[in-house]
């Protein structure tokens, strides 16, 4: 026992030395990285300043996990939104860089202005307009109720009293909440649509409300699933996707009018047909714009 204090003290000393060692080394690396990032930022800043006079390179954020709007295909971001973005940027005369940021980081990046805009099947609503600016709507989402055979849902009002699965933060969630009430206890908000469909298969929820294109994708990939679908344009309120900008961004009008041009001149219709195989409802979009 007499040896213990000596052992204790020496261990303590070793610990302190080790910590001190770590401290200095991290300090060095930190200052190193700080230094280099600062210089990088410096050159970046100059580069963008120079580019400002000619053409500013816009940073675009997305969450490439929402087929067929944006998803990863062999390491590249593809989808309806991606093609539309290319057309709009060409029309507006901007170079851009599309980055896959993930959902929550994308929101915060647009809010803080570290990217110039976000395109990711983003639904326009009043709560979100308090924080962001939106372009004119570019996609009308038609909600589809997917339910197991025999549950017998014929229109949206039948959702009342049923257990409903949605993906959190989507148009489907908004639409279902408008029918049964916000944060109703019968609504389960899943992390992804795939999880909501899995809950439907297991009978945890009786119906899933989502975009018809997403539902179509599910049926295509799960041909054995015994589900029925119904759309209801009368009872569901229309929801629209828009490009999202930081509040009071200077490029909103420019990009928005370029988008409107792309919708009017037929490029939009081409892209729409390529991805969804049908004619877009242009009247609904123009009506929503007004």
């Amino acid at each position, binding site marked *: 026992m007499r040896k213990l204090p000596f052992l204790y003290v020496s261990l303590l000393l070793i610990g302190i030395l080790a910590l001190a060692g770590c401290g200095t080394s991290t300090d060095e690396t930190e200052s190193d990285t700080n230094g280099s990032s600062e210089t990088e930022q410096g050159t970046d800043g100059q580069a963008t300043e120079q580019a400002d006079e000619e053409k500013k390179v816009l940073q675009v954020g997305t969450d490439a996990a929402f087929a067929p709007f944006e998803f990863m295909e062999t390491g590249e971001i593809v989808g309806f939104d991606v093609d539309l973005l290319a057309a709009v940027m060409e029309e507006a005369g901007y170079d851009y860089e599309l980055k896959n940021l993930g959902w929550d980081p994308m929101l915060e990046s647009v809010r803080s202005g570290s990217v110039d805009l976000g395109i990711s099947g983003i639904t326009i609503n009043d*709560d979100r307009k308090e924080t962001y600016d939106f372009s004119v709507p570019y996609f009308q989402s038609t909600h589809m109720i997917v339910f197991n055979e025999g549950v017998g849902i014929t229109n949206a009002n039948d959702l009342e009293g049923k257990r409903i699965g949605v993906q959190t*933060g*989507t148009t489907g969630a908004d639409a279902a909440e408008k029918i049964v009430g916000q*944060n109703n206890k019968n609504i*389960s*908000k899943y992390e992804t649509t795939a*999880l909501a469909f899995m809950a439907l298969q*297991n009978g*945890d929820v009786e119906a899933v409300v989502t975009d018809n294109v997403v539902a179509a994708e599910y049926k295509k990939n799960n041909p054995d699933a015994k589900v029925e679908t119904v759309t209801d344009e009368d009872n569901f309120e229309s929801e629209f996707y828009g490009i999202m900008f930081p509040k009071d961004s200077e490029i909103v009008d420019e990009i928005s009018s370029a988008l409107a041009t792309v919708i009017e001149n037929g490029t939009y219709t081409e892209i729409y047909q390529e991805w969804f195989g049908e004619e877009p409802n242009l009247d609904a979009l123009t009506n929503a714009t007004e």
Partner: protein
Amino acid sequence: MIDFLMFIQERLADIGIDFRMKIVIEYFPFFMQGMLKTIGMSLAGVLIGCILGLFIALGKMSPLFILRLPFVWYINFFRGTPLLVQLFLIHFAVMPLIMSPVNPIASVIVTLSLNSAAYVAEIFRAGIQSIDKGQAEAAHSLGMNKLQVMWYIILPQAFKRMIPPLGNEFIVLLKDSSLGAIIAAPELLYWGRAATGQYYRVWEPYLTVALIYFILTLSLTYLLNYLERRLATK
């Protein structure tokens, strides 16, 4: 309370931070409901985990290799695979055999219990094996049977030594219950995500949720410290 929150919002705005207390206030009742569910799920997980863990620890200490084997592999499985995967397996594959529709809260409780049992078992084993053999031998010589030795002599002493690592495990478990949000168990983080989904803002919901988790774990820390002091022998 609301006045105070608005006061903070204004001060934050003064230094250029845009923080909407409105979201916090609107979702406060939901956060409270979620907090109660989080506490409930964690308590149930801790209790069931401790009971299961004790048996698994005893099983793993069995002198028979064959008897030891299932317990060893139970621990290997639950320590060696991600908790999220376990949650999916239990929610989508195991629970549907027992109940329909599956209550996600039940799935979270079962997953947390089974998972923490593996960790708690090792804590118990360490605690039990840290007690000097002489204690058991002395008790045996007084005519106690194996069960009595374990219950009256070993466990009370071992328990004291197990409090710090158990406290660690409880805190981890409390925070891990947030994974329930992914299968739509309406616990604390679920409501944070719901608020983010409505407003597309991340700081207000997540910081509030983090603060509530912090208050919960802090209370647990001091409760355990108190317990440790009460049980300390001089």
